[in-house]
């Protein structure tokens, strides 16, 4: 690919005290792509996504979104710039109704037209959320909360949506639904970065992937290439 990536990160380092969780990695995500970050627990995948949206500080990095430097930008400025995250563990606002959660997703969107378009899209993708819009989010099932977390993130009309472990803790049948949904997002040209433990499912929807182990990228390539590489298996078995 020769065109400039939508997001590019150079030399990303994340430290928690003395522990270096991410050790200087480079990666990029192009417009319209679905990019998966794969690897075992503790490989540094979630830290990578969290650092992109400033949920954890990047110790060192240069991150560009659409050519604009966003490395040290405050988290609240990222959604209006088009970057958002559906976090690990869903983290919906349990004491707010489904509708209020979605309204908060569009908090930084000034144009009423854009808000309505996003609301229509979320309504379209998740009819169940519309049905339950007056219910407190904390009373939804795990799968519905995951839908709400994704729907809430979509409300700001992101150029790039990051999904952190969207299938974590969900029943297999519900996991299937979440991945069907990701496939639907792809049809709507939403650019996605996904961290996922369920490798088979992730590679089914992804265009490309990065395999991480011990805070480093140990393999990268198209989904088809990664399915064949033994680096992927090695990464999960703890080798690098």
């Amino acid at each position, binding site marked *: 690919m020769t065109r400039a990536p939508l997001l590019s990160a150079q030399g990303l380092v994340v430290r928690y005290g003395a522990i270096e969780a991410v050790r200087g990695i480079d990666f990029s995500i192009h417009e319209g792509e679905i990019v998966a970050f794969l690897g075992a627990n503790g490989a540094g995948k979630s830290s990578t996504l969290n650092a992109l949206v400033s949920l954890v500080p990047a110790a060192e990095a240069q991150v560009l979104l659409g050519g604009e430097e966003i490395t040290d930008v405050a988290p*609240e400025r*990222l959604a209006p710039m088009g970057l*958002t995250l559906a976090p690990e563990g869903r983290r919906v606002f*349990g*004491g*707010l109704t489904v509708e209020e959660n979605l309204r908060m997703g569009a*908090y930084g969107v000034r144009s009423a037209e854009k808000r309505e378009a996003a609301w229509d899209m979320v309504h379209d993708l998740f009819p169940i959320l519309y049905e339950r819009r007056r219910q407190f989010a904390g009373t939804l099932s795990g799968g519905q909360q995951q839908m709400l977390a994704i729907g809430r993130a979509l409300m700001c009309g992101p150029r790039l949506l990051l999904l952190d472990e969207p299938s974590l803790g969900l029943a297999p049948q519900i996991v299937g639904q979440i991945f069907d949904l990701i496939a639907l997002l792809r049809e709507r040209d939403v650019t996605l970065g996904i961290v996922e433990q369920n490798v088979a499912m992730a590679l089914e929807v992804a265009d490309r992937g990065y395999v991480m182990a011990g805070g480093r990228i140990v393999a990268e390539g198209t989904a088809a290439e990664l399915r064949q590489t033994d680096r992927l298996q090695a990464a999960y078995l703890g080798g690098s």
Partner: protein
Amino acid sequence: MDLFVQQTVNALALGGTYALLALGLAVVFSIMGLINFAHGELMTISGYTLMYCGIAGVPFVISVPLAILAAMVAAVAMERIAFRPVRGGSGATMLITSFAVAMILQVLFQNLISARSQAVMLPPLLSESLRIGNVIIGVNKIAAIVATVLMLVFLDRFMNRQKTGIAMRAAAEDFAIARLMGIRANTVIAGAFAISGLLAGVAAVLWVSQRASVDPLMGFTPVLKAFIAAILGGLGSLRGAVAGGFLLGFIEVYLAAFLPQELQEFRDPIGLGIVVLILLFRPNGMIPSRVLGSVKV
């Protein structure tokens, strides 16, 4: 029976004032984990504003909103000057900062105004009372109850219908994620302080209108009570703060009215004993905060 009705009105008036103060503490605590002990000094600032307005001959209907505004401005300034630099610090750091702010303000009041209690001119209407059947109710008590109800309705609407209010509830649950949605930390925190100032200002007007005086330590006792009320209700829970405030008001007023004469000097320890007893059975308060509900004491 008449005495009971009378004392219930008194309890509602006192409990309402505690509820407003506890709510002010809870709004700030729920969002930034700070127990603002300088909340009482916001009340004192309102009290002095009422005093100076009275001296300057400003009509009471104008001096009341001015006094409330003074507390709001002071609250926002307090956040900007004292609490923003320690934001994200430990609970202890913020608590010590709030004590420091409270002490600095108290010393300023003592040195720049007076260490003694100062009279506040109030309209004669406030010291009148109404007779309903055999029950005599002070106008200031009715004003306190009406003001409390209006404030609670206003706050409920604001937190449930206004975008900023909903954002404040979201931030109270998960500040990091709320920021990811584009909710500005500064806006939400300054908003929380402005609301706590508004509540402290209203509570101060009610407090002063029962006593007609103001002194540098005026805010200390009511805020200590409000802190107890907030713990009783469930720290960080807004509904809990209101419930705790009213319950504490009822405990205090009923004990003062119905405890036998020889036990009256033990009124405060008995009252606090009841609070401890309630907390033994409900360690996280009567209506625990959703976020902090699982915290074990």
